[in-house]
């Protein structure tokens, strides 16, 4: 496996402070390697988005990062902790090193500015010396790259279809050739045909440009198909992390296997669907021990008292007493 780009170490994120605080991310450690697609899955509310925003310090109030480190390894130079950067350094770091594509493209694009303005102002902010013409040329190039005719440069977001807007966002994310692209449910609002088109394009671009991707979705079949490794989150923690194929074939954590047993397959023989009983935990009143134990069909003695830690097992890690023992 290649060297890491981003190492998240013991990240903790709260919403609010004091007694009101909701611990949305607890002690999460995760490593993204150069050139890979890391999938992040889990039920809704499990903290996937919080993790993505937290590691870039983009959480809106009342989000607070209460601990941990996010070590970034630049292509050249020494690694540094993103969470310790000053505001100015952070501004320079953003987009140039990590770019983010959000869930709703309509909401991610400013409705009152032309997309050309929104593409070029990144360039202006990060490279003030660049000339107007070369900025435009670069923007045009990026649009072509994501399959949009450059003559749509002067369109406003609402004049583009949902898929085109999403592709503009991807183009914008790549315009500074960042090392890492974080994608938070980039295709859930689109239908399957469009979804495939966009993801296909992304994979192709990644092969050409060599950036790494953190890909967040709760559509497991999509993840299994598109990512190299998958991390499964539950209740603010990562419960399992493994190569995609490995998880699909043989999930170690009962929650992961529950998830995998919940979606019907389109092809092949009709599978039996198991589902997961119960409903996701309330972050304010987390069960003791393993937070999944009240829903776990295989729960046993230590599960309700001790929190399992994510421990490596070969090329995968899992946090479950079942595997420990």
């Amino acid at each position, binding site marked *: 496996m290649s060297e890491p780009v981003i190492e998240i170490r013991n990240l903790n994120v709260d919403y609010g402070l004091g007694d009101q605080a909701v611990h949305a991310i607890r002690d999460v450690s995760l490593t993204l390697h150069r050139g890979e697609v890391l999938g992040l899955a889990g039920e809704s509310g499990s903290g996937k988005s919080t993790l993505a925003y937290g590691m870039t310090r983009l959480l809106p109030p009342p989000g607070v990062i209460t601990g941990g480190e996010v070590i970034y390894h630049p292509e050249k130079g020494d690694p540094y902790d993103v969470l310790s950067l000053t505001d100015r350094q952070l501004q320079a770091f953003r987009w140039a090193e990590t*770019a983010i594509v959000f869930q709703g493209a309509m909401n991610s694009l400013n409705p009152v500015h032309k997309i050309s303005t929104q593409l070029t102002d990144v360039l202006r902010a990060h490279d003030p010396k660049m000339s107007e013409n070369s900025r435009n040329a670069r923007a045009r190039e990026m649009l072509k790259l994501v399959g949009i005719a450059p003559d749509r440069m002067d369109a406003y977001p609402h*004049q583009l279809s949902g898929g085109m807007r999403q592709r503009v966002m991807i183009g914008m994310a790549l315009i500074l050739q960042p090392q890492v692209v974080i994608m938070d449910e980039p295709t859930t609002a689109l239908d399957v045909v469009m979804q495939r088109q966009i993801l296909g394009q992304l994979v192709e671009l990644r092969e050409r440009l060599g950036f790494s991707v953190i890909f967040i979705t709760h559509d497991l079949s999509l993840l299994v198909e598109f990512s190299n490794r998958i991390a499964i989150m539950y209740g603010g923690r990562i419960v399992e992390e493994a190569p995609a194929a490995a998880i699909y074939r043989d999930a170690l954590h009962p929650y992961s296997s529950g998830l995998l047993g919940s979606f019907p397959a389109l092809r092949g023989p009709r599978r039996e669907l198991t589902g997961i009983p119960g409903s996701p935990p309330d972050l304010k009143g987390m069960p003791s021990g393993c937070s999944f134990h009240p829903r776990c069909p295989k729960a046993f003695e230590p599960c309700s008292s001790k929190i399992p830690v994510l421990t490596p097992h070969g090329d995968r890690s899992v946090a479950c007493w079942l595997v420990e023992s």
Partner: protein
Amino acid sequence: MKYFLQRVSFYLFTAWAAITLNFLIPRMIPGDPVQALVTKYQGQLSSQAIDSLYVLFGLNKDANLWEEYVSYWKQLLTGDLGLSFTFFPTPVSEIISSSLPWTLLLVGITTVISFLLGTGLGVLAGWRRGSWTDGLLPVTTFLSSVPYFWLGIIAIYLLTGPDSFFPSSGGFDAGLVPAFDQYFIPSAIQHSLLPALTILISSVSGWILSMRNMMVTVSSEDYITVAHAKGLSDRRVAMSYAARNALLPNVSGFALSLGFIVGGTLLVEIVFSYPGVGFQLFQALGASDYPLMQGIFLIITISVLVANLLADIAYLLLDPRTRKEG
């Protein structure tokens, strides 16, 4: 075409109904201009004058309401607003044209300044929440609730006087003749400072508050987060992303407030003896001067309708989503 006609007829209907009401309402006032005039002079005008005044004002002939209404429309359509009673026999149009500029300049400029200032402060207060700007809010809330005529009177008392820079009343120095020269303009500006300040203080907070709230709302939009994620400078995010979008609802509010310029600041003009339309209206009310009232109402009606139109156009210009697809 049918749709267009529908819109137009809707506007025409509104204008017609408003103008008709404007015609009827002043006539609900009991008494007549002659009596009002005699009463105004409280004995200085002998009651022997009454008969001659009826003849003078042309009120000695009986006309029923319907005939008056018909002739009112005839006049209106020929652009004639009739003669004022208060200032008999000055035509209403002359009175309005001599006082409207004052109102438009004083209240208009003040409204614009108030909007710009309020919006600017609102942007600051909304963007830099938690800083000193938070202190702005209680003060402005309080000021916005102060009756502005009260504020104006206090300002006159505290700030004007024999040696004060601020004149206590009027639109310009009594010794001057209105002209665009180096004497008149500074004097007009000097005279407008206090009334403008009064309006400004009591109206600016409305803009601050609404702009701040819009900023707060817009700040949590995804595209703001994206703008931050793009590493843009704080200033650029605040202005080009947050403020630019937060401005939209305020702009139509602003256009509408332009429509209320004419009718909205009656008391400031009264308190400061400012030669504007609001004050004329107030005088007309006291004098049962229907033609003048109607004329001013007409101006107000038209300006509100035009302001509505402006609001639409402004929105069209500022929000590409409402523009026609290209």
